[in-house]
């Protein structure tokens, strides 16, 4: 399955098992979503469970919170993560705090799905990675898959979770893994080991990282599209370090045990994300590693991230933390 098919399948499975699961968002109904993630669901489950919404992110999330208070399990879609900001108040002030402020009387068991990340010539408003805004808000979970297998298992787990979950889907990975070279032919998911997706219901536990490959020289912490870019860059470089590559999969809650064990083993840590650097999630990761693994570190913790600029269109491949930037970072951290 492609990641899109896996997401579609996860929604289908979740809706089949629990008739309170309700899918809503712009163009998700009859049309099946601009990325086809909800294709066929309205025909199968009816307009009361899969419906189009007005173009109002504030409305979509506000209404989803009310539906959750009623007892439904809403799965709202925000068409691009770049357009999540009109819903910020509803997410941060309401969904994130409802359980806490009502001492559990009301909860917001919603899963906000949203395509995110760059690498598609999306320019400023079709490429952003706003996860750091949400990891800063207590009460929200943030989940980011990097494979079709994880996408399905994590999405089902998110929908079944009783807390609000932001489920960011790396749209660069919807149809295939990404090696980081925009000028080479794109690969599809067919034949990829992580594209084997079981039928029916299964969950990938939220809060557990995946060790993509083991290594002894260096720990690389990343998630989303960058998992594949890093893996493929390591494969391509002749002098690549023997890196332990960790796909975090979930930022809040974070799998600190896996991170700590790995960095204590390797003594070096490189953090890679597409999002802008300053106050990004990488800063939190860096601080945690420094606090917990200080005496095991043989080099400063480093970050390869998007630059602190809006996401550019023409200069995307200078901005993107791709093979060129990664190769330099590998050299530097192994020299330090």
């Amino acid at each position, binding site marked *: 399955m492609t990641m899109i098919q896996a997401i579609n399948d996860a929604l289908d499975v979740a809706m089949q098992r629990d008739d309170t699961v309700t899918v809503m968002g712009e163009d998700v109904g009859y049309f099946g979503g601009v990325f086809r993630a909800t294709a066929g669901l309205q025909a199968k489950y009816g307009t009361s469970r899969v419906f189009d919404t007005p173009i*109002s992110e504030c409305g979509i999330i*506000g209404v*989803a919170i009310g539906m959750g208070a009623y007892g439904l399990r809403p799965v709202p879609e925000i068409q691009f993560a770049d357009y999540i900001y009109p819903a910020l108040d509803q997410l941060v002030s309401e969904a994130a705090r409802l359980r806490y402020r*009502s001492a559990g*009387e009301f909860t917001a068991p919603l899963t906000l799905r949203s395509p995110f990340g760059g690498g598609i010539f999306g320019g400023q408003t079709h490429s952003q990675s706003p996860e750091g805004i949400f990891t800063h808000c207590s009460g929200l979970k943030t989940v980011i898959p990097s494979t079709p297998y994880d996408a399905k298992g994590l999405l089902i787990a998110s929908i079944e979770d009783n*807390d609000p979950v932001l489920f960011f889907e790396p749209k660069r990975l919807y149809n295939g893994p990404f090696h980081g070279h925009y000028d080479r032919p794109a690969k599809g998911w067919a034949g990829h080991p992580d594209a084997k997706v079981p039928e029916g219901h299964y969950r990938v536990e939220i809060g557990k990282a995946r060790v993509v490959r083991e290594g002894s020289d260096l720990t690389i912490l990343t998630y989303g599209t960058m998992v594949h870019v890093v893996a493929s860059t390591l494969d391509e470089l002749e002098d690549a370090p023997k890196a332990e590559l960790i796909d975090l999969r979930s930022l809040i*809650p974070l799998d600190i045990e896996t991170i700590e064990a790995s960095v204590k083993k390797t003594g070096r840590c490189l953090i890679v994300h597409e999002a802008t650097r300053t106050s990004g999630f990488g800063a939190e990761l860096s601080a945690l590693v420094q606090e917990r693994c200080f005496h095991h570190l043989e080099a400063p913790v480093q970050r390869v991230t998007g630059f602190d600029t809006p996401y550019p269109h023409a200069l995307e491949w200078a901005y993107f933390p791709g093979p060129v930037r990664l190769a330099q970072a590998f050299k530097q951290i192994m020299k330090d």
Partner: protein
Amino acid sequence: MMATTPENPVWTGANRPPLRLHVPQPPARPGEAPNFSALEIPAVDAGHRPDPDTPAAQMQGHAFGLVRVLDLDGTASGPWDPQVSPETALAMLRAMALTRAFDDRMFRAQRQGKTSFYMKSLGEEAVSIAAAFALDDADMLFPSYRQQGLLIARDHDLVDMMNQIYSNRADRMKGRQLPIMYSVKAKGFFSISGNLATQLPQAVGWAMASAARGDTRIAAAWLGEGSTAEGDFHSACTFASVYRAPVILNVVNNQWAISSFSGMAGGDETTFAARGLGYGIATLRVDGNDVLAVLAATRWAAERARGNHGPTMIEHVTYRAEGHSTSDDPSAYRSAGEAAAWPLGDPLTRLKDHLIKQGHWDEDRHATMLAEVMEQVRTAQKASERYGILGHGFNQPLDTMFEGVFEQMPWHLAEQEAQMLAEWRAAGLPDIKREEPGA
């Protein structure tokens, strides 16, 4: 470009009359006489009562009129007269008096340093009380912070409300919320948020869910006229209209949003009720100090919602007779005489006069009732204060701070909790032990 002719002079540059920014100003400021001349009060029988399935587009008159039942002399009449029994009218009178007594007592408790904050609903009691009497107990309420009357009309335990205000040991919210931000699921009263207007789309979503499930329950939401300027109001109206959600959107126009008069929310140019029309939402504008009119309008809206005819917006024209909150001094921005000069009077007095006129009530019984509700509040206050008051410090075990952020506590919160307790102990401060409320 338009040609210059003697009939059409095209002015350019400095010859053009300068533009001016219009910043609305209230009709009266401190030191000036109150001025409510802009408020038109039609006769009680001026408006008809349309069928509850009337299309919104045919309700222009109701967006600019005023649904009224009680004349200022206490006579009830007209097409909207809900013909309530004396028992129901007396129950509403008592609930309004109880709300007012509760407000008085809690306002004073804040002044005595027993808690940090309070907000009265003086003069607006009819808006909440009548709505609670018009709706079914199973209908879901999404209030703002000035609808304490809803809880009181639904016979919620006053002690429980006060426990929340005092953030005491028995506070079900565990001291997490600012006073008056109640949450009472058992009474269909949604958790109040400090962020204005957020509850409106939530109420619409609740109503949509009820409809999607084939339920028969409806939702109602409240916000002030000032909060209608928030984007959430627009989102809520759009969604309510698009999905014909079984919801009642109540705009409580009490003329003031802290120090901003209603003109600052757009009230000078049109009515707040009229905003509903633009969304295709049936709209009623109601005398908010006329408890029978509010009851009648809410019943109409509920009937419309239950018949799958869609949402209703009700603008309640009332007056915020007290300061915005215990942190506010209204003498700094409005005429001191306004509350007394408010042309729609006092909701409690108006219903009392009506009942006396009908022969169901008299001054003696009224005085006795006022003494009874005062005693009821005083008794509740004593009971609540036995669980502690905020003024005496922490009433919650320290570790409750970390509970309920998520369903299960993740490691980072568990670590922070352990750190806090260690800091506390290292400073030699006592642990606050867990104990059952009332222990």
